[in-house]
């Protein structure tokens, strides 16, 4: 049987991924693009967690939860590295 919540949040995840993809392609500044890619990632996380959901009262699948927890931390470190690279690039351009 198809769970309403599972499908709803999975589709929202796809929607967020698409929004992020559009932003990453159309934004002008590096900061805007990094932000958009973060939204992309959030969409993927939402898809994974929607699939892990098994209905009210049931323990959800812990494996995707662990994956996404890892993903959140990796995403923030990648964001920080991208922003540091961007700052360095700008300083190099200014010199």
């Amino acid at each position, binding site marked *: 049987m*198809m769970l309403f*919540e*599972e499908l709803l*949040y*999975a*589709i*929202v*995840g*796809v*929607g*967020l*991924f*698409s*929004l*992020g*993809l*559009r*932003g990453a*392609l*159309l*934004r*002008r*500044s590096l*900061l*805007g693009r990094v*932000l*958009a890619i973060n*939204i992309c990632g*959030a969409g993927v996380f*939402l898809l994974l*967690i*929607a*699939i*892990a959901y*098994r209905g009210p009262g049931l*323990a*959800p*699948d*812990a*494996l995707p*939860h*662990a994956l*996404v*927890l*890892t993903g*959140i*931390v990796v*995403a*923030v*470190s*990648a*964001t*920080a*590295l991208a*922003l*540091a*690279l*961007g*700052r*360095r690039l700008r300083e190099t351009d200014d010199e």
Partner: protein
Amino acid sequence: MMATTLWMMLDVLLALLCLALGWAAVSSHDLRRSVVFFIAFGLLLAIVWARLGAPDLALAEAAIGAGLSGALLLAALRDEPGGTLDDDVSRGPLATAVSLLVVVLGTVFAWVVWQTIDVADPVRMADRISGELSGSGVSNPVTAVLLNFRAYDTLLELAVLLAAVLGILALGPARTPYQPAGPLFDGLMRWLVPLLMLTAGYLLWAGAHAPGGAFQAGAMLAAAGVILRLGGDTNSGLPRPGMVRRVLVSGIAAFLLVGLSTMITGRDFLEYPDGWAGTLILLIETAAMLAIAATLVLAYVGGRPDGWREGPGDLDIAGDGGPR
């Protein structure tokens, strides 16, 4: 039946809000607004995680996804040149074409998800995890997956974090520190920083049986560092450079030491001996928490903090020699 309808309404409301805030964050022409929308989006996402039965993620998202990412983006806003701040989204025929393409792609993805979501069978994996849980040393399934069943993945994740922070340190000096805070913020800091450290310790300990763990605890400690930096502390609560370097590798070091010890005693890499799993997991998590906290603080600082030049073995990769 009534309760089911109410839950459905809540779900639809959350879903629409998610999409609306995501849209606002990505499509606002004003970059400053985008960042604020992004922080709000992260907080909303934390509620969605809680709704979908993932409290571990809700904690991590609120602390890292919304909190630290938001702080990072806000700090980076200061560096943006004025021109792009107000008009940051491309327009014109090409932009319309890109939008159309993304809509088509999204529709295809959504159709694929619709068709396959029932085919995937996550139940068997979930049942295996709950079946093996009693021997894992912890009773929180997420912690069990992260530090026992798939500990290898977490070890490599710490390596990714280390690579990222080494990149940040190599790219150049930190942003200029903030002015020392006024008496009001100073007083707030004296309350917040010890409270955050206490919360970090609690989350680390609770991670064995309840939502929490090294990542959430590390994020709490990092938040204390960010607050200290905002309050004008030039070290952001970090110890001496030499010590920070050791802390940065401590997570991986603890993992490897435990892994090698289990190998020496005739088991597989990171295959904990019976009865020792809980202790070893707590040991690894403590080191990982400190490493994650130091990594996130340095990520916020955005480069080598003041006084790191004198350290032995500090390469002048940036090639800029002296102070600027």
